[in-house]
């Protein structure tokens, strides 16, 4: 397998301050000082101290993509994903490091840039296509496909300034979707338009990935990353947190986001509660889950049988009109179910809480289980179950991958 993209120790520094007189004189002074130092000690010339206004968006990022692979790039907002893509696609230069790209790379960071409002759809297809690296002839060969994909046959000779915003993005995506590059950089936000066209976009994105030699996909949807990419790069504060096979990286990432989502909730409730009370009102001393198939404390096997959760909660104070609820959320924080009940006895002490579910048909992964106590108006305590609930991978299930959240005993067949 030959390498198609090779990135070595890429770092990127940004200057965050405002450019004004002060910055200008500081610049000049710093350059002068460096020059002077260089005069006296030529070896010292290269060292440059970070100023307080410097910000490292990327730090020593290295990875390779081989022919036939799709790389998923994940990480929270501000982790450096966009900066990395800009470096790869030559839009900005790294502060250190090297990128080698073998083959024609097209990056679809944002569609429709470079469209000219006075130009007709036809002219804009040529303008945008050549801007993205096609020759006029290549655009001509793809022209009919592009127009057909966009569904704008009737309006192709109308200036795009008269297009609706929906028509505009459809045309833009259609051009971008027909570049047929060897290496493609895709941002999932590219899927645009109404629901039907969005579906078309997603399908086309998958096709592009399958057609090309290699692809780089940026996404927040872990399902898509799992499905489309084989290797995955997880960026965190500009550094590589993990690089490796997608399923490993994604499951670590999901664990991490689970932690963060929960600590966000905790902070929120702690904040609300701080105003009234100092001591925590309640603590979750232990929890467990059991089903017929697994007696392990915090894991279950995906199945269709009854699942029972046990929670031991310690109340330190009397909460009037207390209601208690249990929720299960996925790693992204999407709440999947909530069950609540009123607490009859509101005296301090131990409470044993049981949640019975006739079935819990979840796909494998980690889930956040939490209890919340409220005084009828506000949440007064948020208790998170640690460790998280893990739904194990079904061994030998014969199913190819899980899409979606639910894992129901459904049956799909052709009616004859």
């Amino acid at each position, binding site marked *: 397998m*030959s390498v198609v993209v*090779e990135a070595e120790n890429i*770092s990127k520094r*940004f*200057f965050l301050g405002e*450019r004004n007189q002060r910055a*200008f004189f500081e*610049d000049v002074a710093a350059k002068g000082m460096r020059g002077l130092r260089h005069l006296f000690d030529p070896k010292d010339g290269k060292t440059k101290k970070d100023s307080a206004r410097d910000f490292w968006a990327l730090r020593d990022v290295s990875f390779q993509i081989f022919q036939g692979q799709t790389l998923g790039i994940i990480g929270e907002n501000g982790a450096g994903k966009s900066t990395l893509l*800009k*470096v*790869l*696609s*030559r*839009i*900005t*230069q*790294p*502060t*250190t*490091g*090297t*990128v*080698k*790209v*073998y*083959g*024609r*790379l097209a*990056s679809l*960071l*944002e569609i429709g*840039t*470079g469209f*000219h409002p*006075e*130009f007709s759809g036809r*002219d804009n297809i*040529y*303008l945008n296509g*050549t*801007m*993205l*690296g096609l*020759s*006029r002839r290549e655009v001509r060969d793809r022209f009919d496909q592009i127009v057909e994909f966009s569904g704008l046959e009737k309006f192709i000779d109308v200036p795009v300034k008269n297009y609706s915003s929906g028509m505009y993005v459809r045309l833009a995506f259609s051009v971008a979707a027909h570049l047929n590059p060897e290496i493609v950089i895709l941002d999932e936000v590219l899927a645009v338009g109404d629901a039907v066209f969005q579906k078309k976009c997603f399908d086309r994105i998958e096709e592009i990935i399958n057609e090309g030699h290699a692809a780089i996909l940026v996404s927040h949807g872990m399902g898509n990353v799992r499905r489309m990419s084989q290797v995955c790069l997880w960026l965190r504060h500009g550094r590589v947190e993990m690089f490796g096979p997608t399923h490993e990286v994604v499951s670590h990432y999901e664990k991490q986001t689970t932690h963060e989502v929960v600590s966000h909730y905790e902070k929120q409730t702690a904040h609300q509660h701080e105003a009234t009370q100092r001591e925590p009102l309640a603590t979750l001393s232990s929890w467990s889950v059991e089903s017929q198939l697994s007696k392990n404390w915090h894991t279950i096997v995906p199945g269709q049988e009854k699942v029972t959760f046990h929670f031991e909660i310690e109340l330190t104070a009397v909460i009037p009109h207390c209601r208690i609820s249990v929720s299960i959320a996925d790693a992204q924080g999407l709440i999947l179910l909530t069950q609540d009940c009123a607490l009859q006895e509101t005296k301090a002490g131990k409470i044993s809480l049981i949640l019975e579910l006739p079935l819990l048909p979840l796909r494998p992964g980690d889930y956040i289980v939490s209890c919340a106590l409220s005084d009828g108006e506000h949440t007064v305590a948020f208790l998170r179950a640690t460790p998280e609930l893990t739904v194990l991978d079904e061994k030998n299930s014969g199913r190819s991958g899980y899409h979606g959240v639910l894992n129901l005993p459904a049956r799909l067949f052709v009616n004859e």
Partner: protein
Amino acid sequence: MNTPKPTYVVEADKLLSTHPRELWVYRELFLLLVKRDFVAVYKQTVLGPLWFFVQPFLASLVFMIVFGQIARLPTTNLPPLVFYMSGIIAWSFFSNCLSQVAFTFLGSGGLFRKIYFPRLIVPLSQITMNLLNFVAQLLVLLGVIAFYELSGKRIELGVKMLALPLVLGVMALLALGIGCLIAAATVKYRDLNIIVGYTLNLWMYGSLIIYPRSAVPQNLLWLLALNPMASLIECYRSSLFGTEHTEVQPAIIATAITLVVAVAGLWCFAKAEGTFTDSI
């Protein structure tokens, strides 16, 4: 195993160099950008491309009244209209080129942030657009000359006209060089861009647009020698009409200055294009 050559390499501390071959690859984008700029100016105007002709005419009329009738500056042996108009179209070619090139990063920043293509394509397409503009205006000037001819006034148009493309090329190169220097400098600090228009206006008064060299007092001639545009305009007029005597020395100095400025400008431009998106 022999390793294949990368299609491109991005490296810190190296110029994101625009290889001449790459400019050629993007030649069709270049043509479309020329068309875009051309269409953009005259879309939704009543007179459309007629504006090419109206602008130099009006300016020449104003110059004829102010400098010819009121200030009574000489215009060699050319009719004032021809003298001023020839100067105005050449100067507006130069100054439009320069100010548009200087605005490259600020004007196309949004585009450059999203899509990679050799950045130099944009200034080159703008210069070409202005060149087309100039040619159209030159045709009008020739029309005016024909009118004078018909009404009995002789205006010599010599074989020297063949040197015109060369003179224009040097002017364009000078505009490109200075424009690139300003474009690179304005990436961090925009002060220069504010004074470009203003400076170009002042510069015109020192560039033999509204008066010939013969009108300049002896003790100020050294100032003209410092201004490459002065001798370039002179070369331009003499290649058109063969009227003014041109010395070779100032033309050589002007060309040398142009080459130095162009090399420096292109180098700074290449240096700036790697990181300018970080600060615009």
